[in-house]
């Protein structure tokens, strides 16, 4: 049958073609997987078998300038749960919830939190009781994947002391992790969230330990591929003096209490005094010796995670936002403390002869002026009589400075914006550059900035012109001028140092503890900023006035310094009582000492607290007591009263 045979051959050929195409399909698929897509599969094969486990390194400690520990570490009992076994044994979650007295939903949410790696155990509680830990260890069969371990966490031996400065730590957020990609951060890692903890994070954070394990398909560990021990972080030594810091905070707290308890005759109620701040700086290099903000918070409440409600309460306006660091971020009208800039400008430009005397009648009437805003009064309408620049500072004669403000404006063709220029030379109106996050720049207004604001937004700033009255207001630190407590301390530091200004410095070095003692690994040097040399003719009359503030019987802060050994430690200072529309007066005091050899510069600002001389100056007095090592035996208690 040739037909059948031929047909069979044709059919066989078709079968052969089908077979050939099937083999071609296999070959091309193998080439696709093993050549084109191979690298992706190699990555997956490695991820399959390699588990990387990180062990956080203990953070470095935070020390004061004398190596007293402000922020320490302590060992915490942590209970962790492996996500794998949480999925495989859902009953474990319920058992754990019952044992630790927490909600099973909370554990579940944590177990599925994408911020945690699926291969590192997820911390469930950071402070487990000893009983819970023992129970878990003894009943390990009932708790597969649950581990009780010890971990280092933050502790604060001095409680809330310097809370704003040291900041706090917490679990890194997704944004913080994203911002530090490649920086050895893992989900669940602690990170500095504010203050020194954040600013010096690179030094404080050590290098986490890393272990690479090879595991089989059943997640059994086959062998260790790589291991590295964690390297603890470096200690950071602050410029803070713990004793002065303690005294500053105590004095601030006392002043706030005093303000709460005194009656404001203008507002016909007690002073609200919602917040305040004080800064102590070394004029010689810009080192911060103390920095405090009120109200404060307990950094320990962040350890092991803070609840949303707790965090909200710390930022709530009703509670006056305790988390806000008013010392670097609060912006206040400087009031009479600003007269320093006006005085320097007047003497430096020779607008004013130091011997010129003006009769202060308690009010200043603007020449060639029509309308209702032509008369400017002293605070309390007090008449100071004949005053020169020195006396005007001592008794805080506004009338004297009004005159200077008006003269500068009338002679603006000659002097330009001389007051603003001096204010800026003292560091006002720009950020100081302190290493902490949250600093504000304050504001030194001038005709140009007023016009620019008006042009940018005519509705919000209907008045684009600058008038004599604006200069008069500026001369006594009112109007639109704003300063931070840190800027004010820096300005008086700069004046004390003869015009030399430094970037405020909170830390001097990072060090590591070795068996042979501490070894310095990084030094944070003092950084001078452009300095304006002030000559003696300018400085002398002003210093005399500032010294009079605390020593002259008519000085505005004389009561606060009653009994202070001024002959031994002469103090130069200036009170300020700033008016804020719709609020009670802001009390300010800025000073430095010893006046002949300045080592300490101070600023104190208290919101809605009354007279600078009566509430702010006593704070400075008390911390000078501490700074100079004075006790009740050789210094008298503060008498609080006065007028600006």
């Amino acid at each position, binding site marked *: 049958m040739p037909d059948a*045979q031929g047909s069979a051959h044709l059919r066989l050929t078709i*079968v052969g073609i089908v077979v050939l195409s099937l083999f071609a399909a296999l070959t091309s698929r193998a080439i696709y997987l093993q050549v084109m897509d191979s690298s992706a599969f190699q990555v*997956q094969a490695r991820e399959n078998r390699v588990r990387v486990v990180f062990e956080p390194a203990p953070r470095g400690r935070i020390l004061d300038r004398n190596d007293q520990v402000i922020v320490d570490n302590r060992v915490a009992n942590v209970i962790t749960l492996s996500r794998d076994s949480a999925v495989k044994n859902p009953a474990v979650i319920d058992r754990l919830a019952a044992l630790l007295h927490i909600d099973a939903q909370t554990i579940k949410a944590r177990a599925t939190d994408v911020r945690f790696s699926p291969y590192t155990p997820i911390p469930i509680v950071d402070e487990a009781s000893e009983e819970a830990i023992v129970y878990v260890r003894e009943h390990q069969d009932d708790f597969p994947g649950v581990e009780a371990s010890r971990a280092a966490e933050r502790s604060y031996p001095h409680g809330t002391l310097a809370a704003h400065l040291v900041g706090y730590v917490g679990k890194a957020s997704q944004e913080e992790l994203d911002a530090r990609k490649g920086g050895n951060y893992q989900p669940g890692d602690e990170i500095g969230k504010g203050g020194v903890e954040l600013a010096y994070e690179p030094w404080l954070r050590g290098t986490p330990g890393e272990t690479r394990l090879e*595991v089989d398909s059943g997640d059994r560990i086959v062998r260790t591929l790589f291991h590295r021990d964690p390297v603890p972080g470096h200690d950071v030594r602050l410029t803070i003096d713990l004793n002065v810091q303690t005294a500053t905070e105590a004095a601030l707290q006392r002043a706030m209490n005093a303000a709460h308890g005194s009656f404001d005759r203008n507002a016909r109620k007690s002073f609200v005094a919602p917040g305040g701040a004080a800064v102590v700086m070394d004029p010689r290099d810009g080192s911060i010796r103390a920095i405090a903000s009120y109200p404060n918070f307990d950094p320990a409440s962040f350890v092991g995670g803070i609840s949303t409600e707790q965090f909200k309460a710390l930022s709530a306006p009703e509670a006056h936002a305790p988390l806000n660091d008013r010392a670097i971020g609060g912006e206040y009208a400087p009031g009479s403390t600003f007269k320093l800039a006006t005085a320097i400008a007047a003497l430096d430009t020779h607008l004013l002869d130091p011997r010129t005397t003006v009769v202060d009648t308690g009010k200043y009437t603007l020449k060639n002026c029509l309308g209702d805003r032509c008369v400017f009064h002293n605070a309390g309408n007090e008449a100071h009589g004949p005053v020169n620049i020195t006396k005007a500072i001592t008794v805080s004669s506004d009338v004297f400075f009004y005159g200077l403000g008006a003269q500068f404006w009338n002679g603006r063709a000659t002097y330009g914006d001389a007051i603003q220029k001096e204010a800026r030379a003292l560091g006002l109106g720009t950020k100081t550059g302190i290493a902490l996050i949250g600093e504000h720049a304050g504001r030194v207004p001038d005709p140009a900035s007023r016009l620019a604001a008006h042009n940018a937004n005519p509705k919000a700033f209907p008045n684009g012109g600058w008038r004599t009255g604006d200069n008069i207001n500026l001369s006594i630190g009112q109007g639109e001028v704003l300063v931070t407590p840190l800027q004010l301390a820096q300005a008086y530091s700069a004046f004390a140092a003869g015009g030399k200004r430094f970037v405020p410095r909170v830390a001097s070095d990072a060090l590591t503890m070795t068996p042979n003692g501490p070894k310095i690994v990084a030094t944070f040097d003092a950084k001078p900023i452009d300095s304006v040399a002030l000559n003696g003719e300018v400085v002398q009359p002003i210093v005399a006035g500032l010294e009079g503030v605390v020593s002259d019987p008519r000085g505005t802060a004389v009561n606060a310094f009653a009994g202070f050994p001024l002959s031994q430690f002469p103090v130069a200072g200036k009170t300020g009582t700033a008016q804020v529309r719709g609020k009670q007066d802001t009390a300010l005091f800025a000073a430095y000492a010893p006046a002949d050899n300045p080592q300490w510069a101070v600023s104190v600002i208290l919101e809605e607290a009354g007279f600078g001389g009566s509430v702010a100056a006593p704070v400075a007095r008390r911390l000078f007591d501490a700074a100079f090592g004075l006790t009740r035996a050789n210094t008298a208690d503060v008498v609080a009263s006065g007028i600006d």
Partner: protein
Amino acid sequence: MLASRPQEGRGFLAAWRHADHALIVAAMAVAALGTLVVFSATRHRLKAQGLAETSTVSKQVLFVVVGLAVMLLITFVDYRNLRPLAPYLFIGTVVMLLAVVPLGTNVKGTQARFDLGPFQFQPSEWAKIAVVICVAAFCAQFRGQLTGGQIIGVLLLSAVPIGLIYEQPDLGTALVFMAILLGVLAVGGARPRHLAFLAALAVTAVVVVLQLGVLKAYQLDRLGAFLDQQDSAQRVAYDVNPAKYNLNQSKIAIGSGGITGKGLFKGTQTNLAYVPEQSTDFVFTVIGEELGLMGSALLIGLFGFIVWRIWRAAATARDLFGTLVCVGVLCMFVFQIFENMGMTMGIMPITGIPLPFVSYGGSSTLAAFAGLGLVLNVGMRRFS
């Protein structure tokens, strides 16, 4: 020479000179490669269980040796003498498949094996060889002209063993029978329109099966894993979808082998037991991972050579029965090779089919060598 049929014994030696020795060598090479990778796939898992590393591979070596013996034994008897035995073979096969229902042991949910002490006997593997002979014998008698009625006859007869195997359940092996049937019918003289009708019937059957929802959960999982490979970069836990996990790990093993492979016994996927069923259905992953594309290409090349020689034996067979026997074996091998390797690489859905000469398993190895024996038998007697 053509006139008289020589006596069996002397005739065998005469015919053996015409045997396709290259085919035997190629099959032995594949089997050798197979034992190596079976060893690689099993040694760590055995060690973890406290057993001797070689306990599985030594059995496989034994299966290969016995398989070669079976192959030789089959070549000894002229295939034409098998033709009258076809009805008895058929009955014997059906009896065995029926007997396994009450007497067999259940392994991984499939009632397909007799337990014989250290070994197991899987009648469905032998049934493939028997059905090849039976269907070839049945079709050969119509001299290359199959009517519709005759085709229906073949289908009805085959439906008995196929149905029994499908019920074990062993869908994969049942599909092998269909491939054998299709090939033998096509070459044996079915008319194109009948074949087209059969193809249409098959498509309809697939649609109906999917629509009726008679597939079991694991079969749906396998189909799902095959159809949805987009997220294969996502690790799938074994307990969530075993088929997806299996396919995922299988592709990772093969793909990560690259061009040259990680080296024999050095595959991480293999050594750390990431691929389930790796010594049997997923044995190709060991070759892919440890020997890379070079290993895959070598295996595909050897299989290609074997299939080509079988095709040649079919083309040069002395009679239609011989041709159809070879075609049946060819279809069996090709379907198993394509389905098995294809599923490990994600171009075919997962079904439990061994890779001939490579996968660990007594019955499947013996059946593969038996099929080869039939082909050699036909080929060496093409002149007698």
